[in-house]
């Protein structure tokens, strides 16, 4: 083991490092660069959008999305495949993430809470989605990766419109 890797693995992940990854992800999603987005994930990671914003046990409750690596790949294929009439063309989105708090931080992983405002535009209609987002980020080798992302829409329990992009 080199001195370099020892120093990385011993220092806790900082909020600045975490925010850099979260903003990178936001930019990739708004630009619909989904291949690059897939590469941000750990193999075991889950992308979760619960129906009940108070739910904590996502695997045993109904979600809008509960995606492992295979499902993320399928979802991206669907969004870019050109055959899904609801996402061809896709809506445009612009999202802002802020109100970051580092809830846990160690050398190998951290948990960040933040707020997301997303404006969607398609066919002369704008819609606003507000959500609390929780990220679990993991350091593997030198890179920080997404290991879990839970997007809790504040109106998740209401009737929603179709989402032709990723939150």
């Amino acid at each position, binding site marked *: 083991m080199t001195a370099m890797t020892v120093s990385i693995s011993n220092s806790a992940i900082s909020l600045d490092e975490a925010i850099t990854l979260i903003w990178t992800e936001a930019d990739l999603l708004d630009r619909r660069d989904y291949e690059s987005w897939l590469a941000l994930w750990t193999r075991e990671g889950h992308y979760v959008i619960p129906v009940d914003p108070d739910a904590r046990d996502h695997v045993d409750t109904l979600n*809008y999305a509960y995606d492992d690596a295979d499902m993320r790949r399928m979802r991206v294929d669907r969004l870019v495949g050109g055959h*899904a009439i609801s996402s061809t063309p896709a809506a445009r989105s612009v999202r802002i993430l802020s109100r970051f708090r580092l809830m846990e931080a160690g050398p190998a992983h951290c948990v960040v809470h933040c707020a997301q405002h997303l404006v969607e535009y398609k066919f002369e209609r704008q819609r606003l989605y507000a959500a609390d987002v929780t990220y679990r980020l993991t350091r593997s080798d030198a890179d920080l990766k997404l290991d879990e992302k839970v997007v809790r829409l504040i109106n998740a329990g209401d*009737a929603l*419109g179709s989402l032709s992009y990723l939150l």
Partner: protein
Amino acid sequence: MTAPRLASGRPMSDLVLPDRIETAMYTDPDIFTAEMERIFSKTWVWVAHASEVPNPGDFVSSFVGLQPVIVTRDRKGRLHVLVNRCRHRGATVCERRQGNATSLVCPYHGWGYAQDGSLRGVPYVEGYTGDFDKSSLGLKALRVEEYQGLVFASLNPEVETLSDYLGHTKLWIDLFMKQGAGYPVKTSGEHRFRFPGNWKIQLENTTDAYHFPIVHRPFIESLDKQAEETFTFLGREGFVEDLGNGHSVMVMIPELIDLEANLDAPIPDRFLPLANELAKTHPPQEVRRIVRAVGGTGFNVNIFPNAACSMAFFRILRPISVRETEVRHIAIGMEGGPAAANRARLRLHEHFQGPMGFGSPDDVEAWQRVQRGVQGGPDLPLMVNRGLGLESSSVNHLPKGGVSAETGMRAAYQMWKRMMSA
């Protein structure tokens, strides 16, 4: 009561012909108003599943047409469906979607009602004369009956029994409930969405196999080859049957009519991980039964006017206005069943349904295109003649067509015509 007429004086029931309907069916607000009165206030309307209110004091909010109602279970375990409106000055007595409460108290002046709807408490009752009759001021109660856990209500005190109304659908509902695999069927959450379109566009869709390979190509492409084969049902042995009273069944996958038949058939590849997991705790035959149940049935039962038992979930529609409809896709699970099996059911539901599903958003897009499209050519009819002339007679002596025939839509529209003529 005389049959409703259009502004032009024509009877509304004239808009339905055996093979087509007129465009105003989707666009005329007067027709919508008449439908709420002649259909949604006259017949049985699905309001809840019994598992949403399992215990005394449980309640769930719902709708009968445009009217907000509360489905409650009283102390003795009986179900009630009550209009959500205080008998004093009209405020809603419940704004929660679901919960448990010993009483429903109006927030405005504090009138309190028991779960059976009877008026129990009136603050400062001495402000009324001695003949103030609490017994006549309970929440307005609807007729309520249940079949296989499906709870229906009616605003019409003279309505026929639910059993008579469901008629030939009961056999199919019984088959549908086999996806409990011996455990009671329970609801396990739902996806709700609205679309800018008339409620009958959704009603038609549940009995429309014709759109499946077109609209749902991305869903089919996301499956493995074996599952892709299962979902390729056009031109095969499936069928659509008129079941009377506007109801119909569309069988897409005939091998999945009776989930307990032919249990020795090989388990599809995509269910092997689940089967292996269940095999740790269940005998082989039980594993086969549960795995088969998890995949759901191969048919949709369309129950006029607002419900469907659709393959592996309940589909409930709620008309909001002539151009707006809310749809609920309610997930189903096995009460007390293996966690791995219920988990697999949730993942299957998420795969197709909901605003991020691989199926529902494309349906929604197609339906709203219909509503936008019919602003053009209001003189043109909507054609529901597919399969007409090619039908045979079912065991019930009713029309039976091929899997992509519009037999189910014609069944619903003939019921619509009958109710709008009364």
